């Protein structure tokens, strides 16, 4: 197994309720490799198994068959070694904790001293431009701010792999574009590898170094499209190259859906 891969998946299969009448094969014969520092977006028809793939990678559920290794370890081992930071569509903050204490949560579980974790949490909030809101409760923050706290929390323990499942899906277009720029900034500053699930083709193109297109259920990676934009600043969205990439991904997705 190559050591220079963060994630290596081969022949992955996941069947829910195997052997029963309600058995569902969500993923079958799926291969995917991710190198360090890559930003890979996964896009595919609704219900094809994107979230399932992410949960398999994160070691939250076990595959039925196939190989999956993260930094050369099994997903379970990687999870126990805290290799993952996860961000879901719902920010999932604990509403009885202030923003800074939410960011501290994983550090607390890992036994960091109060002083160290407070310092790190403050640092992370700064990274997501929320330094002024450390002592606010989630109920006092907007949806976008909550999601930024959730990103800060996921990054606080410097995971080698950031797993994001439609993290901006619940946000309005303006906030969404702002968050995309923020995420790119964070990605550059932290040297993290990101796997990012989205329904938005422009979002995938803008953020990623590579877009992986999934087929309908049982899902596999049907196509991988490298994205090569000259710079990833907001105005790149209005360039010819950007449109070309978006259109390429769209055509691929369409052809995959009608296979």
């Amino acid at each position, binding site marked *: 197994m190559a050591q220079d891969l963060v994630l290596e998946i081969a022949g992955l299969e996941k069947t829910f309720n195997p052997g029963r009448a309600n058995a569902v094969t969500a993923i079958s014969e799926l291969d995917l490799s991710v190198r360090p520092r890559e930003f890979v977006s996964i896009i595919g028809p609704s219900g094809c198994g994107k979230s399932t793939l992410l949960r398999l990678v994160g070691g*939250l559920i076990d595959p039925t068959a196939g190989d999956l290794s993260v930094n050369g370890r099994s997903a379970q081992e990687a999870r126990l070694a805290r290799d993952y930071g996860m961000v879901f569509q719902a920010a*999932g903050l604990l509403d*009885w904790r202030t923003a800074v204490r939410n960011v501290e949560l994983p550090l607390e579980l890992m036994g960091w001293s109060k002083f160290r974790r407070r310092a790190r949490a403050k640092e992370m909030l700064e990274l997501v431009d929320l330094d002024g809101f450390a002592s606010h409760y989630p109920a006092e923050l907007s949806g976008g701010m909550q999601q930024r706290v959730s990103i800060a929390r996921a990054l606080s323990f410097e995971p080698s792999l950031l797993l994001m499942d439609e993290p901006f899906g619940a946000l309005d277009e303006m906030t969404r574009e702002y968050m995309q720029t923020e995420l790119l900034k964070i990605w550059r500053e932290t040297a993290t590898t990101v796997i990012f699930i989205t329904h938005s083709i422009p979002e995938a193109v803008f953020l990623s170094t590579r877009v992986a297109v999934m087929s309908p259920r049982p899902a596999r990676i049907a196509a991988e499209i490298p994205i090569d934009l000259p710079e990833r600043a907001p105005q790149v969205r209005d360039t010819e190259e950007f449109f070309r990439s978006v259109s390429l991904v769209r055509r691929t997705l369409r052809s995959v859906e009608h296979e």
Partner: protein
Amino acid sequence: MTDRSTTRRARTRRTLVFAVFLVVLALLYTGYKAFGQAVDDTQRDWWVVGSFLPRSDDKNMPPVLDILAEFGQAPREGGTTIGRLTLDGALFTLREAAVGFAAGTIIGLAIAVVLLQSRRAERGVLPYVIASQTVPLIAIAPIVVVWGRTGLEFLPWEWKDWMSVSLIATYLTFFPVAVNGLRGLQSPSPEASELMQSYAAGRRQVLRRLQLPASLPYLFPALRIAATASVVGAIVGEISAGVRGGLGRLILDFAGKYITGPERLYVAIIGACITGLVAVGVVAAAERLLLARRGIVAQ
């Protein structure tokens, strides 16, 4: 902080409303009495007042001021006043209720945490927890006292009768705490649980950092119900088991002497009401203390 001053103002307003409520209650009582006297309900030809509803004479409805004056009266010349007797009884009953309430809360939470571990345990045990509450309290109270006197000699401390009454309060408390506690412990979203899993959090860490704090908003309504139930249960338990020293015994005594002094019974009943209010008040204060820090300003 504007937040704090608004909550303080709200509290002052609530106190004021409560005082007005008491005055209105006293006025209604007095008004009903005056009306009954005016229409002379002793004749019993007035179809509601005096027959269907209580009669308004001083035996059945002592004047409000007489009841208030009774607090300072002593049954025997120079002896303890009725107010003092009631206070002592209330403190005795409150202790029984508080000990039982505390034990019931711990047991209830323990049951909830055990049932949380598996769906099968929940399905298997919960019906019995619910069935436990169909046992009539009045029937088991004397049994508990007898059992306490004879069967608990193995305990390292001496078992007193009042502890048996506490046990009744425990019995009434553990149930709502277990049922609501379990719902609260199960309330975190699947995402929150998966997040904890992704941090490789152990079962105990999940319980302490996620499930227990999430259960508090579910737990407090149960605790408020349990607080009143504990006081009422303690009073009923004292009466039915014949335990001396508390409000239950006092109510029984005063009811026996109702003909010679009905005001006393009213004093004891007011004492019982205040005791219940104190119990709920303590729980509500704890709730404010614990939940007000959540940013959502608790009512």
